């Protein structure tokens, strides 16, 4: 309950000065900017107009007009809320942490503006900024790699990368024709046409060891010529997990887990690439066993055979 009041009050406090500065905006547009429905925004406005300064006479209440056919909002008297209050700790942290992330993610955003905006926000946060400094986003991306990707994307050129792949655990040099960058939960991904694979691939930017900008010669087939991505259903493998390694259920996408009488868990895991499952099995020291399909069991045996040759 108190969370709701505080969240709503925060919105109201940001709303009055913003509406005052954006005179004549429609209810619908204002609602979009505050991430609420139009009816919630109207409920907020109805609450605001009964609040005000002690005395609470007509001249002391917040005065907002928001009726009429076009539902445009006019703040006639914002009382003490003409100017917004300082950013709260959460507000300031939300922006600064996101800006720190953007600084580490390649893309088309303006890096100079990013640095100067961060400086200005830190300045208005004052002493609070010292605490915000211990809120860290670590995307694991190197500054040189980020600027090489930025440049290749901006100039429409190739990118030459040294990549530590996780599926096959190998290091490869590749020529990529970058398509775009996305980022989820603090990790950055580069999508591009990979000449080595002859197909579109997604690379984790923190696994790119080195990157440099290549020439402007692009070979990527146009989308209509490109092989359509295979939409074949992903195969599922049946696995059994030993009781002491049940933590793996939190970490890997194991579906339909079913506990066995001895405490072990059987389930299924999606096989995007058989190599990945083989590595997972090897890393679990016998606590994760593939029950089927047999082809995947054979792949595990083959991998151990190759590894054991060195110890023979």
């Amino acid at each position: 309950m108190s969370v709701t009041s505080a969240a709503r009050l925060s919105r109201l406090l940001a709303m009055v000065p913003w509406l005052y500065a954006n005179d004549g905006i429609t209810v619908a547009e204002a609602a979009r900017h505050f991430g609420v429905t139009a009816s919630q925004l109207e409920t907020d406005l109805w609450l605001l107009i009964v609040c005000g300064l002690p005395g609470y006479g007509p001249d002391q209440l917040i005065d907002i007009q928001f009726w009429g056919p076009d539902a445009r909002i006019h703040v006639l008297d914002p009382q003490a809320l003409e100017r917004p209050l300082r950013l709260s700790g959460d507000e300031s942290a939300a922006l600064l942490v996101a800006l720190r992330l953007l600084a580490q993610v390649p893309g088309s955003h303006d890096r100079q503006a990013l640095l100067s905006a961060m400086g200005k926000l830190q300045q208005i946060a004052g002493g609070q900024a010292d605490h915000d400094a211990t809120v860290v986003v670590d995307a694991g991306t190197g500054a040189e790699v980020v600027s090489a990707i930025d440049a290749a994307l901006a100039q429409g050129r190739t990118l030459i990368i040294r990549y530590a792949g996780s599926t096959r655990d190998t290091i490869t040099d590749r020529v990529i024709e970058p398509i775009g960058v996305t980022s989820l939960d603090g990790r950055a991904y580069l999508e591009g046409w990979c000449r080595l694979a002859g197909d579109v691939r997604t690379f984790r930017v923190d696994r790119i060891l080195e990157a440099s900008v290549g020439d402007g010669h692009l070979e990527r087939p146009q989308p209509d010529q490109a092989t359509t991505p295979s939409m074949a259903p992903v195969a599922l493998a049946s696995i059994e997990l030993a009781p002491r390694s049940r933590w793996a259920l939190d970490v890997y996408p194991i579906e339909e887990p079913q506990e066995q009488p001895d405490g072990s868990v059987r389930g299924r895991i999606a096989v995007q690439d058989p190599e990945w499952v083989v590595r997972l099995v090897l890393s679990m020291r016998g606590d994760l066993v593939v029950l089927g399909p047999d082809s995947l069991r054979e792949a595990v045996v083959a991998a151990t055979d190759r590894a054991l040759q060195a110890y023979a």
Partner: protein
Amino acid sequence: MGDSGTRVDRTERLLDLLLCLMATARPVPRSAIRSVVPGYGDAPSEAAFERMFERDKDELRSMGIPIETVLDPGGDVEGYRVSGDYALAEVRLTPEELAVVSLAASVWEEAVLAAPARNALRKLEAVQDGPVRSMASDAGIRMRAQEAGLVPTLAALRECRMVTFDYRAGNGESSARRRVDPWGVVAKDGHWYLVGHDQDRQGPRVFRLSRIEGSVTVTAQSQQHPLPAGTDVSAMVGQMDADLKAEAVVRVRAGMAASLRAHHQVDPFADADITVTAPTRAQLVARICAAADGAVVLDPADVRIEVSEALAAIREQHQGQGPSGTGQA
């Protein structure tokens, strides 16, 4: 959105209280607050008013609103006011800066910090010259940050206060109550972590926020073990429990064993002998096994034997047909 009558009243009362304290530079005594602010008219007794007022005052303070308690010459509370520097500074942003801040605000999407980010952007827009409203851009950059513990942990960090929570460690143990002086919050490898001093275990620890069960409570107790100067909180994530160090010299094959080669400055396309470390012996063996034929242990002999035995055991488990034709696509 399902706001009950009482919640509307509380928001209204908080706003009236805030405006009352902002209206004058002179401190407002409690008695005046009680008689003037409409929401307190409902309080059936002095004690009930005191409880409501204390809670409201804390709420406003927790939102970062600087409410001062002013004492009279005798040392008694004369009244309360919002200190003069409550307004957002005149911060002018260029269109380019506003665009990148708007992009930053959009990063949170559905996350617990989405509303604070949006309100912050609206506040900044309101202090620019003329009407400014930036539209949300979509650059495909997202932080989901759904962990309920994130917001209270950030507040405790700012206020240098101890937090308590129930924590389920990754090794399958049942959850236990922890008391922690927060040092920093780190987003890394797709997770959010709290780094701090664990009061019960008497040392620095790292906690994954998604493993906290229930809520994080910000206690009234001030931090007793502050962040040691020069500590890199980000570096601490992933380095913890590193006291029991296990290591082995491993030959990694050219172009292979990328995961073991990380942080080693060796030619990736040549065989190399490197020292691999892990928090425990078991994890060391697991890391080396995962590299398959990309790595072979040279030394010590017991790790060499353990790795080859582990590989042989996995081979044994996977020989022949699997049980009951399961696992078809």
